[in-house]
C-alpha cells in the first residue's frame, strides 16, 4: 500500500476525498508499482459491478424478457403452435378486441374477482387476528407459529389434489367434521358440487394455505411498533380500543397493504391448486382466468389469441406489482 494513499492520507490534506477521488483503491493503485497495483486493484469496481450483475440480468433477459417480447409479438398474430406449417398472419389488435369483448372471459374475470376479494378478505382478517393474538407473546407462541405456517410450505398442486379427497362427501374428512359439529348429514351437501359451494371450497383451501403468510407479515408489522408508542398513548389517556384503531391499525397498515397486494398478485395468477381441485367446475363456477388461459394456450393451441390473453393478465399484474414495489419501499423506510 502506498504511503498516505488511504482515506486517512487524503483526509489529512483537508480535501473531501470522495469528491476528487472516487475510490481509495484507485489511488492506491496509482501510487504503487504496477505489479503491486494489480494485486490491490484486481479489477476496477465498475468492471466488478458489471461482472457481478450481468449474469443475473442476462438470465432474466433470457428467461423472462425475451419470452415476454416474443409473447407480445405473437399476440398480434394468428399463430398456432400445433400447426407449424400453417401461414402466420398479422392480425393487428383483433385478438385483444376479441378477448375484451368476450362475455365468457368477462365472467371468468368476475369469478376471479370473487375469488380474489374473498380470499384476501378472509386471509387478512384471520391472519391479522392470529398475529395480534400471537403478539401477546404467551408461552409456546414460537412453536405454534411454526406449526401454523406449515401449510404455506406445501406444494399447491399436491394440496389441491388432496383436498378433492378431503371434500368428498362420503369418504372425505370435511363433511364428517361438519356433521360432527352441526349435525348436518355429511352426505347432504357437497363442497365441490353444484349449489354454489364450489367457489367457497377453493376460497377455503386458499385461505387455509395462505393465511399464515398474511399472519407473518402482520406479525412483522405488529413487532415493528415499539412498546413506547403504546406507553405514550396510555399516558395520553387513549383507551385500549382507541389505541387499537389509532395506533395498531394505522401502523400495521403498510404491512397489510403489502400482504394484500402480494396475495392479490399471486391469486390473480392462481393455477395449480384450483386446477387440480375443481378443474374450473361445476359448470364454469370456479373457472379462473389462468385456467382458461392455460386451456386456450396448451389445449386448444390458439397461440396468438392466448398470447394476447396472457399479455392482458401480465399488464394487470405488472401494474399491481409496481404499486407493490412502491409499498415495499415505503415499508423499508420505516
Amino acid at each position, binding site marked *: 500500500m502506498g504511503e498516505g494513499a488511504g482515506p486517512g492520507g487524503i483526509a489529512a490534506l483537508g480535501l473531501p476525498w470522495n469528491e476528487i477521488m472516487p475510490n481509495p483503491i484507485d489511488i492506491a493503485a496509482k501510487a504503487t508499482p504496477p505489479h503491486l497495483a494489480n494485486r490491490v486493484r484486481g479489477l476496477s469496481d465498475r468492471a466488478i459491478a458489471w461482472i457481478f450483475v450481468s449474469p443475473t440480468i442476462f438470465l432474466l433477459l433470457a428467461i423472462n424478457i425475451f419470452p415476454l417480447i416474443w409473447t407480445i409479438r405473437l399476440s398480434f398474430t394468428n399463430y398456432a403452435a400445433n400447426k407449424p406449417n400453417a401461414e402466420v398472419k398479422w392480425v393487428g389488435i383483433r385478438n385483444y378486441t376479441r378477448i375484451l369483448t368476450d362475455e365468457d372471459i368477462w365472467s371468468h*374475470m368476475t369469478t376471479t374477482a370473487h375469488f*380474489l376479494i374473498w380470499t384476501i378478505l378472509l386471509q387478512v382478517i384471520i391472519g391479522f387476528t392470529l398475529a395480534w393474538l400471537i403478539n401477546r407473546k404467551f408461552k409456546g407462541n414460537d412453536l405454534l407459529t411454526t406449526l401454523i405456517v406449515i401449510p404455506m410450505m406445501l406444494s399447491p398442486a399436491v394440496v389441491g389434489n388432496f383436498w378433492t379427497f378431503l371434500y368428498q362427501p362420503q369418504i372425505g374428512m370435511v363433511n364428517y367434521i361438519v356433521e360432527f359439529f352441526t349435525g348436518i348429514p355429511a352426505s347432504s351437501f357437497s363442497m365441490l358440487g353444484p349449489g354454489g359451494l364450489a367457489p367457497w371450497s377453493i376460497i377455503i383451501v386458499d385461505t387455509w394455505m395462505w393465511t399464515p403468510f398474511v399472519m407473518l407479515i402482520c406479525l412483522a408489522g405488529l413487532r415493528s411498533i415499539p412498546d413506547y408508542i403504546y406507553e405514550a398513548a396510555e399516558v395520553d389517556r387513549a383507551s385500549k380500543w382507541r389505541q387499537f384503531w389509532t395506533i395498531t391499525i394505522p401502523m400495521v397498515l403498510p404491512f397489510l397493504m403489502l400482504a394484500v397486494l402480494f396475495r392479490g398478485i399471486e391469486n390473480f395468477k392462481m393455477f395449480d391448486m384450483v386446477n387440480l381441485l375443481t378443474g374450473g367446475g361445476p359448470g364454469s363456477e370456479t373457472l379462473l382466468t389462468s385456467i382458461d388461459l392455460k386451456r386456450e394456450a396448451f389445449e386448444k393451441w390458439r397461440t396468438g389469441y392466448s398470447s394476447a390473453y396472457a399479455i392482458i393478465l401480465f399488464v394487470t399484474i405488472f401494474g399491481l406489482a*409496481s404499486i407493490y414495489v412502491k409499498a415495499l419501499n415505503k415499508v423499508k423506510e420505516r
Partner: protein
Amino acid sequence: MTAFLSGLFRFRRGPWENLATVLIALGVVMLMQPFFLWAFTYSFFVTLVGTVMFIITSHFPE
C-alpha cells in the same frame, strides 16, 4: 389539491405516481367488475396507460 395540481404541472413525482396508481387500480377494478361490459373492454387500456405512466413518472424528480 392545489399542491397536487402544481405538482402535476411541474412534473413532480409524487402526484404523478399517485395518478398512475389510481389509473392502475381503476383498470383492475374495471377488468373485474361484473356490471358493465364496456368497462371490461376498456379496462386493459386504462391499466396499460397507468402502468406506462408509472414507469415514466417514477423518473420525475421528487
